[in-house]
C-alpha cells in the first residue's frame, strides 16, 4: 500500500469523529486531529481501535500518544505494516 492509499483509508476512518468538514475535505499530511479537525480527545482512542482493525496491527500506548496528526499516524502505521 502506498502512502496515498494509506491516507485515503485513514481519512475514511477519521470521518465520523470530525466536526470540521472544511478541514476534513482539505485534509493533508499536516492536518492535526484535535486542532484542525476538532476531534474530541477521548475519541482518539476509538480512532486507534478502528486503525488496528482496518490494518490488522497493534498500536501500543507510546505510539498512540504520538498519533495526533495525519503525518505521524501514517508513519506509525507504515512501520507496523512493514514489521508484519
Amino acid at each position: 500500500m502506498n502512502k496515498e492509499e494509506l491516507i485515503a483509508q485513514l481519512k475514511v476512518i477519521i470521518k465520523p469523529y470530525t466536526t470540521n468538514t472544511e478541514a476534513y475535505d482539505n485534509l493533508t499530511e499536516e492536518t492535526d486531529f484535535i486542532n484542525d479537525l476538532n476531534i474530541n480527545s477521548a475519541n482518539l482512542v476509538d480512532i486507534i481501535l478502528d486503525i488496528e482493525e482496518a490494518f490488522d496491527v497493534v498500536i501500543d500506548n507510546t505510539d498512540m500518544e504520538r498519533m495526533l496528526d495525519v503525518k505521524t499516524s501514517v508513519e506509525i502505521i507504515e512501520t507496523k505494516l512493514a514489521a508484519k
Partner: protein
Amino acid sequence: MKKRVVITGLGVAAPNGVGIPAFTKALKNGESGIRHDAQLEQLQFSCQIAGQPQISDELKSQYFTELELRGFNSTGILYGVIAGIEAWKDAGLTIENNENPDWDSGTIFGSGTSGIDKFRESIYKIDELQVRRLGSTVVAQTMNSGVSAYLGGKLGLGNQVSTNSSACATGTEAIMMAFDRIQSGQAKRILAGSTGDSGPYIWAGFDALRVCSSKYNDNPELGSRPMSGSAAGFVPGSGAGALVIEELETALERGATIYAEILGGNVNSGGQRGNGSMTAPNSTAVQRCITGALNNAGIAATQIDAINGHLTATTKDSLEIENWTKALGLSGADFPHINSLKSMTGHCLSAAGSIESVATVLQLHEGFIFGNTNCEDLHPEITALIDPLKVPLKTINSNPDIIAKASFGFGDVNASIIFKKFQK
C-alpha cells in the same frame, strides 16, 4: 418569599406510548404496553412479559448523532434523552449553541443504574483481557449520572446537573428536588425526570425475589393487575418521563403553556423500622409522607380529587390503600378516585415516578381520570376500605383540580407530590 413552581413541558418514552400525543391516547383508551419478551423466555425467567418503549432507529437518529450511536448500548440513556429533549422542546425552549451554558437551567434526572447492557458487554471484554479495546464511552454510558450528563451536554445546561437514585421513588423524588431548588430561588428551571434500563440484566433480581407476575406469559396484556384480587406480582417495565419544572414568573414572562402547578410534597424514609424493611414499607412513614405533603402544599385531604398511587400489583396494594385512607382520614365513598398506571406499563422501577407524574399532570391539564385495567375483580381487602366506584375501570371525563402522587421504593423510601391545575 417562596417562588411558585409550575410545569411547562412534558416528555415521555413509555411502554405504551413514546411521545406525549401517543402516551395521552394510550392513557385515555387503556392501551397496554406489556408484551411477550422472547429474551426473558429464552433465559427461563418465571415472568416472560415486560413493558418496553418501542423505539425505531429513525427516532434514535433524531436524538443522537451517528458518532454517539457507535457502540451505544444504554437503553436508559436512550429513553432519558428522548423524553428529556421532548419535554424541553414542548416547553418552548430552544437548544442554543452559545459560548456559555444556560446558567439558570439544570437537570435532575434520576436513574437506578445506567447502561447495564454496556456494562455486561464491557465485563466480557475485560475478562477476555481486552481492556484496551473497550472504546471511549464506557464510563459515560455506565456511570449512574450518564443520563443527566448526556442531557446537560445536549441542552447546554449550566445550573445543577445531577442524577438522583432512590429505587422506585427516584422519579418522584427528582421532581421534588427540582421543586425545592426552584422554590428557593437557586434555579429558574430544572428538567426533572428519571429513566430505567430495559432487559433481563436489570429485571433478573426481581424475578429471583419471586415478586413478578408469572401466570400471564401467554396473555401479556392481562399480566399487570394492580388492586386486583388475582394480582400476583408486578410486570417489569422501563422507559423515562421528563417534566420541565419552572419558576412561575419566568414561565409567565415566556408565555409558556402551564400544565400544572406543584403545590408541595414530601420525601421521607421509614428507616426499615416497625413493619418497614429493605423491601417492605413502614406504614407509619408512608402515612407521614402523605400528610407531610398535604401540610407542605397547604391543602386539606378533602381537596384531593384523585390519587395516582404506587400500586404495583404485589400483595402490598391493599396496605397502600389502607395507608392512604389513614393518612387522608377518608374512606368508603369519601375516598378520592384512585388509579395506577402500572396496569398499562408494568412497573417501570426507577422511571415509574416520572412517567406516572407525566400521566398525572396530563390528567389535570386535559381534564380526565384514566381508567384502571385488569382490576374488574377488585381485591376484597380494598373493597372493605373504599367504595369500588373510586377505582374507575374506564376513563372518566371529570375535571380534577388536585391530584396526589406517591411513589415508594426499596430501602423503605417514600416520595409524594401534590399537583394542581394552574390558576393565576
